[in-house]
């Protein structure tokens, strides 16, 4: 992308506005056998989440007699990116699983279900950056659909800094941007009503002032995404067969 006289990032690769997300698709009840499930997509990044439980936890030594626990499993499917990913857990997917778990656990209330587990499986069938954000959004929808008690609703978005320009919802091409100060990619999650930041990860370089700016931008973007999630949950009519 080496334009001669144009160092600054003035136009996005896909022609979006700087504070615009990709086209968002959200659908609830996509996995008939799960207790709750949802699909969430940012353009070409697609995440499917399925929730099972609360159910009895084995092995027994992991049980907590005070409250239920949550396990999140994030996985990219081997065909989700152009270079085949070896299936199974990797360093990266284990980390994202744990991060998503912490982000979601800030809203769930599992005190009613001692000695049990809620299993959340996040699958990425197609990836174009921001997969963990799509994953958390899908998992939030699926947890709500499964009837898990929650005090708030978690929404996630990625904010990028291309050279000096802040952008919402980073795509792969932007992740690889190298002009000027290069690319910084910040994934963050908020609880909607309280506006609390429940997860933030940063990859790149950014100043204090700019980070605060990025968080504000992320909060605004999350409000918009939340409206779409809300609509998806309210629209789910009984189209998931007998079990759900």
């Amino acid at each position, binding site marked *: 992308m080496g334009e001669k006289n144009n160092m600054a990032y003035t136009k996005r690769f896909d022609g979006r506005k700087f504070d615009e997300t990709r086209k968002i698709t959200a659908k609830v009840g996509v996995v008939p056998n799960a207790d709750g499930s949802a699909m969430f997509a940012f353009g070409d990044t697609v995440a499917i989440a399925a929730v099972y*439980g609360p159910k009895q936890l084995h092995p027994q030594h992991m049980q907590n007699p005070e409250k239920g626990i949550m396990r999140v499993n994030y996985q990219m499917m081997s065909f989700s990116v152009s270079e085949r990913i070896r299936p199974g857990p990797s360093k990266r997917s284990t980390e994202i699983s744990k991060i998503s778990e912490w982000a979601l656990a800030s809203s769930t209330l599992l005190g009613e279900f001692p000695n049990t587990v809620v299993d959340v499986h996040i699958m990425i069938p197609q990836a174009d950056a921001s997969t963990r954000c799509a994953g958390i959004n899908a998992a939030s929808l699926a947890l709500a659909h*499964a009837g898990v008690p*929650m005090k708030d609703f978690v929404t996630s978005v990625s904010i990028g800094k291309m050279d000096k320009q802040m952008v919402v919802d980073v795509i792969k091409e932007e992740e690889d941007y190298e002009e000027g100060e290069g690319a910084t990619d910040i994934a963050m999650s908020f609880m909607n009503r309280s506006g609390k930041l429940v997860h933030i990860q940063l990859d790149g370089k950014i100043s204090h002032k700019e980070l605060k700016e990025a968080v504000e931008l992320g909060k605004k973007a999350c409000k918009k995404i939340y409206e779409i999630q809300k609509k998806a*949950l309210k629209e789910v009519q009984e189209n998931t067969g007998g079990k*759900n």
Partner: protein
Amino acid sequence: MEEEINIEESHREIVIPGEIIVSGSDYLPGDGTKREGNDIVAYRYGLSDKNGKLIKIIPLSGVFIPRRGNVIIGRVNDITFNGWLTDIDSAISAFLPLSEVPRYIDKNNLSDFLDISDFFNAKITNVKSKGVDLTLEGKGLGKLEGGIIVKINPNKVPRVIGKEGSMIKLIKDETNCKITVGQNGIVWIRGENVEDELFAKKAINFVTDRTFISGLTDKVSKFLSEEKNGGKK
């Protein structure tokens, strides 16, 4: 249970966790809601229901949560020296003690009455964090012999039963089957032949696929008569 049946009658609305249902100090928070400052906030996904001052949430999805007094259908998992360990399709296991069976049973051969993988109809007497206790003492409780088992969402059980059992009575009469609906979403159907049983299963799935539609009993009655005529032709 009766008040949960006619979903469409009052102005009920689907709410999502964290959503403010109403503001103001006039209301009281009920099941699935909590007061936060001046607002009543939904703590789970479902239909919000205003009953006078009380606001509660009727769940639409999720697993079965055992409550004392629920009549459920369970399956024997294991036999111990003084009772049966059973699966009632919930997060905690259920125990049916020998003393809760109102008939004589040979203590050395518990499997003569209920063997592993047998189904039975029982009532929940106690819910503890360790597990659920069951009893067979009561009308219509006991072993279920023959027939087929269908699983539905436990939150749709009130809809399948209908107002004062109108829906289930209609299906029973039209299909000539004995049907028992457990609160845990397990349904036992027994008819004269397999065709009748499968017909009843179809009717139950017809109901669970259309829980949001009003006047469902009439639609089911139409569906049943159409299916019957279609089968005969």
